[in-house]
């Protein structure tokens, strides 16, 4: 049974935009699903239906075996790691305080939180003694993104949602973080849904790719599938434009 599944999900915003026009998706445990598309394709909206930040007008969203509406949204979000572009770190809290935020919300005792924070900072390649007390504004973009990932892993959630997590980085840093992420994902066995508009990134990180356009999934398959046999029309144009 998939860890996460969308069935015929529709969403129209109050502004009238039809953001999701019957989207169906599924991710198996310990796999990476990449939602690939241009801006305005509906990929971020689809991601936000998974942690209840967006409520669908129609269709069903199953997360960890239960329909989203049956979850207490707070409890649901605490079981899902959430990483966004520029990391969304709380600017008034130190790196360590950011990382231990979800454990704190869950009421972990202080010493357990501290141990977990050190472990996580080490895991994402930031020596805790050097970075723990730093403020987000003092970090580089890559370091902030690492902290964001460490924070998402805080309470050891089975599922990670990542929205353009490497979007704001220079190409070199971006490439290194992608490699580290892939290695970490395999080691920890997390289920991941990742949103990007970057075709090489999608093909490099995904087990499954879902290409989205105008609120619909226009092609679903393995990276090889999408690269070698793109659907004629939008997918073919999009992939060809991005790959030499």
């Amino acid at each position: 049974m998939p860890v996460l599944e969308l069935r015929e999900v529709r969403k129209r915003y109050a502004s009238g935009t039809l953001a999701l026009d019957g989207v169906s998706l599924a991710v198996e445990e310990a796999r990476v699903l990449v939602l690939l598309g241009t801006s305005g394709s509906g990929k971020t909206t689809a991601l936000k239906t998974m942690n209840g930040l967006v409520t669908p007008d129609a269709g069903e969203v199953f997360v960890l075996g239960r329909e989203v509406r049956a979850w207490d949204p707070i409890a649901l979000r605490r079981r899902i790691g959430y990483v966004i572009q520029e990391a969304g770190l709380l600017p008034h809290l130190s790196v360590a305080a950011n990382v231990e935020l979800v454990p704190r919300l869950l009421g972990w005792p202080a010493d357990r939180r501290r141990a977990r924070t050190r472990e996580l900072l080490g895991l994402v390649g930031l020596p805790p003694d050097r970075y723990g007390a730093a403020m987000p504004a003092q970090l580089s973009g890559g370091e902030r993104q690492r902290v964001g990932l460490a924070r998402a892993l805080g309470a050891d959630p089975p599922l990670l949602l990542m929205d353009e997590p490497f979007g704001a980085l220079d190409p070199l840093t971006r490439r290194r973080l992608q490699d580290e992420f892939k290695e970490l994902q395999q080691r920890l066995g997390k289920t991941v849904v990742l949103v990007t508009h970057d075709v090489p990134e999608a093909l490099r990180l995904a087990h499954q790719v879902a290409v989205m356009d105008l609120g619909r999934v226009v092609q679903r398959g393995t990276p090889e599938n999408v690269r070698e046999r793109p659907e004629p029309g939008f997918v073919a144009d999009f992939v060809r434009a991005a790959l030499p």
Partner: protein
Amino acid sequence: MGFAAFAAERRAEILALTAEHVVLVLVATTIAVAIGLPLGIALTRSPRLARPVLALTSVAQTIPSLALFGFLIPLPFIGGVGARSAIVALALYALLPILRNTYTGLLQVDRAVLEAATGMGMTAGQRLRMVELPLALPVILAGVRVATVVAVGTATIAAAIGAGGLGTYVFRGLATVDTRLILAGAIPAAVLALAADALLGALERARRPGRGAAWLAAAVAAALALALATSALRGGREPGRRPVVVGSKNFTEQVVLGEILAALLEARGFEVRRRLNLGGTTLCDAALRAGQVDLYVEYTGTALTEILKRPAQRDPARVYAEAAEAYAAVGVRVGEPLGFDNSYALVVRRGEAESRGWRRISDLAPDAGGLRVGLFGEFLEREDGMPGLLRAYGLRFGRPPIEMDLGLLYQALAGGQVDLVVGSATDGLIAALDLVVLEDDRRYFPPYDAVPVMNAASLGAHPGLEDAVRALGGRIDAATMRRLNHAVDGEHRPAAAVAREFLRGAELVQD
């Protein structure tokens, strides 16, 4: 005596007034924060309410403080004469910057950060406490800072309603034209404002303003608890019976008369509370009728036309009888006249009066077009004021009159900033500054006999009070009053000492 020596001599009183001032500001600002912060948060949650509520608060801020006091005096719980009304008014003025900054500060928090916080599984309350408020804190603190600094300045007005604070010196100084008194009030107030600004400014720029704000809030709470405890202790020592409250308006003669009444009653065994220097006739009357002040000295002409809204009269006996009758209907008893008539007076510089041949008011008519007239606001509105004066003498002034505080008028006249002021006949400064009074040759001004006015219900509650006040009847003539006024205005002697000396000299009290 120079200012330094003066300040050193009054050190203890200056410190006490400064402490009163600080307590007024702290209590008012704390109340404003306690209301403004939750209200500002609520407004971000219901944006449709935000505009009307913010507009309403802005309007509240434009109400002049004296007008606000007029509304507050008769109100139960939040009103009255004294600190409560002042605190309510100050809190109302402090509310706007705190409310607006809380509201805008919260709206300015980055939406992406908020979404990240929600996505992590924060409840609405956790998000507010852990994310929104900490991020909005510098802006909120800026609002508190503005509110506090403004409150330090505005709190001087508290003296107008008997709430004490440094304004007591400022107003007394203005009333008696004593620069040292004004400075002794104004300088500590300025220092307080700068200190509050620096302290809260440092807090705003602190790396962790949240922690500093928490410390400051704790310190303020401790200071307030201490102030409340001391005032409760002081209150505890008072006997059960309510003291007699003596009021006065905010000019020298009134303060001297208030001190005379107070000292006389004290000598007769009454416990007395002084509420002197209240900001004007309307305030005194409202306080008297509300029972916040038990007695003060009013003038029959003022009572009849301005307070009781009857047409002006020329015959002193009829004015007295009619005022007493109308007062009785609103629960106020009029005592025996003190013995002098403090009519309005048109006052000019002696030199100019001699060179232009002005002796009577009617002599002014040919020169009126070029004269600059100074007066205090009341006179423009009164039934027996400016419009009638112009009609009676056919005067046409070339430019609109300049409104000033009563205490500043004679200085302005002596200094040549105005050429003619409307003052009162018993002002001590008239002689002190070498000014002359023009004769009211057409008998325009109605009589203004000084009379004690007393709250009838209070007379019942304090047996013997009316008899004690009656002892003053006919004992102060115009020359005596002018001499007493001059002792304060010209010789800069404390009004209380001048009052005691008069009572001893007139053998109204024994040594």
